[in-house]
């Protein structure tokens, strides 16, 4: 995971360290011809820094100019890694603020950049944690509603969460509230059969709000802890379907509205998140994280929504889930 990200970061650190350390240690050495040819735009900068470094051999104060040039590259890299443009800009600005005008000791540059980036990323990812037990303690049955764009992985994520909850000793019931897509109900039933969960369903074309209502009634009558409600995938631009979602929320009052986002989504992820959030989102699940090496969507969406990440999906099996851990995530990126 995030192999590319790491490479980019290392490139940044190397670039910056190169500016300070190489010149500090060997200020008299000439820049090899090939490098000059390869990165002509960097040459003048190298020279400038080399001159400055001669003056203060042990310490170095970074100027906005030097930092910005490298960080512009870094910003492009972030954008290339599917981080939404506005988020990439924020990370860049944070880094500039952290680095410009700083007097950095020799050999401390990598550490300084690392710290700054870690802080910036952690700040983006610092979202409240979510505790399903607490939600359950407040209201039983607790209703968890899954929503998202077509093909994001709602049903699979729902089944994974059910398995997780049942492993924790809880009981679940499914509400087959995707009454639109072909075989969506059968898909849910098959998961249910494998996990050992009851499915409350109506016919195709039925009112999803009514399906969930019935499932909640069923859970009440049978003392079941969680109602997990699947919903049809919908384009966030489809006003009718978004209105339908509003109705579901109004009628069934779900205790947790979980937005499922495909982590492979590009710049559009932030817009999807924003528009679903207008209907209501309490937590997010990122799927297909095993396919994506870059994780840009996770950063973008979390920056936009500031909502807890329930878990991340890493494959087709029920066990392929991980609790999202911001520290680990950032560590992963930076190590």
């Amino acid at each position: 995971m995030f192999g590319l990200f790491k490479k980019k970061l290392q490139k940044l650190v190397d670039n910056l360290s190169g500016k300070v350390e190489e010149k500090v240690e060997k200020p008299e050495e000439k820049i090899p011809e090939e490098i000059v040819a390869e990165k002509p735009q960097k040459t003048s900068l190298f020279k400038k820094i080399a001159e400055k470094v001669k003056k203060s051999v042990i310490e170095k104060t970074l100027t906005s100019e030097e930092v910005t040039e490298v960080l512009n590259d870094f910003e492009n890299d972030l954008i290339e890694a599917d981080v939404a443009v506005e988020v990439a800009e924020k990370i860049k600005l944070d880094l500039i603020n952290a680095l410009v005008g700083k007097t950095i000791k020799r050999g401390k540059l990598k550490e300084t950049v690392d710290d700054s980036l870690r802080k910036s990323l952690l700040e983006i990812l610092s979202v409240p944690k979510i505790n399903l037990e607490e939600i359950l303690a407040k209201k039983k049955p607790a209703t968890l509603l899954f929503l998202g764009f077509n093909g994001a992985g709602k049903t699979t994520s729902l089944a994974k969460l059910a398995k997780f909850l049942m492993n924790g000793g809880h009981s679940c019931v499914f509400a087959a509230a995707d009454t639109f897509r072909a075989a969506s109900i059968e898909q849910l039933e098959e998961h249910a059969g494998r996990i050992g969960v009851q499915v409350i369903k109506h016919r195709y074309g039925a009112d999803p709000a009514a399906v969930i209502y019935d499932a909640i009634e069923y859970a009440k009558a049978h003392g079941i802890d969680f109602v997990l409600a699947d919903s049809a995938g919908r384009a966030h631009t489809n006003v009718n379907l978004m209105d339908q979602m509003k109705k579901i929320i109004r009628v069934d009052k779900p205790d947790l509205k979980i937005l499922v986002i495909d982590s492979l989504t590009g710049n559009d992820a932030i817009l999807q998140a924003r528009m679903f959030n207008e209907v209501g989102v309490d937590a997010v699940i990122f799927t297909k994280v095993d396919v994506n090496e870059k994780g840009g969507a996770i950063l973008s969406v979390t920056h936009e929504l500031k909502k807890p990440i329930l878990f991340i999906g890493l494959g087709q099996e029920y066990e392929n889930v991980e609790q999202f851990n911001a520290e680990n995530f950032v560590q992963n990126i930076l190590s």
Partner: protein
Amino acid sequence: MFDTLGKGLSGLIRKLVTGTSIDKKSVEEILVELKKILLQSDVDTKLADELILKIRKKTLEEKIPAGLTLREYVLKVVYEELVALLGGKPSELTEKKRIMVVGLFGSGKTTSIGKLAKYFLKHNMRPVLIALDFYRPAAPEQLQQIGKQVGAQVYVHNKKDSFEAAETALKTFSKYDVLIFDTAGRNALDKQLAEELKKLAQVIKPDEVLLTIPADLGKVARVQAEEFHKLAGVTGVIITKMDGTAKAGGALAATSVTGAKVKFIGTGEHLDNFEVYNPTRFVSRLLGLGDLQTLLEKAKESELGPEKAQKLIEGKFTLQDFMEQIEAMGKMGPLQQVASMIPGLGGRIPEDLLQKQEEKMKRYKYIIQSMTKFERQNPDSIEGSRIKRIAKGSGCSETEVRELLNQYNQMKKMMKMFGGKAGLERGQLKNLAKQFGFKL
């Protein structure tokens, strides 16, 4: 349609068309802006750079053909390069016999197959849909239900073995016109899944391998397309989920690394929401020039008739036409889609208005049906007691009847606006559209 990319570009084009004059400096500015739009639309960085380079070279270094201003020339070059980037000439699939559909998880393979089946049926060909996805729960059932919806034969192997299923299907259905294989969604970098796909392709020996790429897919599109191409030899791309806000930049990367062309575009969750891809039309729609060709074709398909479509464009229509339109538009697809095809109108009508209108159209139909022939042809005559009677007859409120009349008038105005004398800007767009060979 390539939504943000489209909106960004049509803004840019509007600047090009309406800006007072264009010098070399403003060409550079436009190119910077163009690159930003491309990147935000998930277009691969390399690809964007290449495109910009070509456009710069052509606009600044080559001689401007006689009769064109620099402004028109820049627009023409941007247009041509985008057409080149978005794939060459469209090709039909009717010669193909064995079609394999591959792609990432949740990229829209099975839905697209339903749409493909419909496409072949329309061409009087008999398709059979073969389920090879035995991983995802109820994937074969999904195919079966879709097959039922479109009226196509579906084959599901009882042993749930994709290789045996493929082999049996090849033998059993050799007399069918076209065999469409629905493979499981996969990460092409997953060794086991990759190996399976490779073997499947060896068994099936497909004439056509279609890769589904969701419009919102990010930069993984390039590497995934590359891998899929290595495994199965991708020959075409289906862009799916074009009804969201996404920009389909990823699909461009996919076509660029595989050399395959975009063949179809999925524009919604209903099985009708499917278009044969035509880059020329697509780009002109993208640039806000509208897509009359598709509109007229769709109109024909939905029995509206080209004359009626022309009428619609010219804004000459009565309530009778309005109702026929309501009926026909149901068949033409969502209003929003229709509007995006009309030159100069793309993206200018609030989306809300269109969606709400669509819902109300059903009720409007009842109202119009409760009118007399005279009333339908002379909407101005509908007042007071007529409104009362119509409301009673249709089971709607008087307010709704008035609203319908208002909407009708509003729509009439709108149609007139883009159809008739439409100001300098649109006049220019019209000219440009003509230049690109669109009949207006």
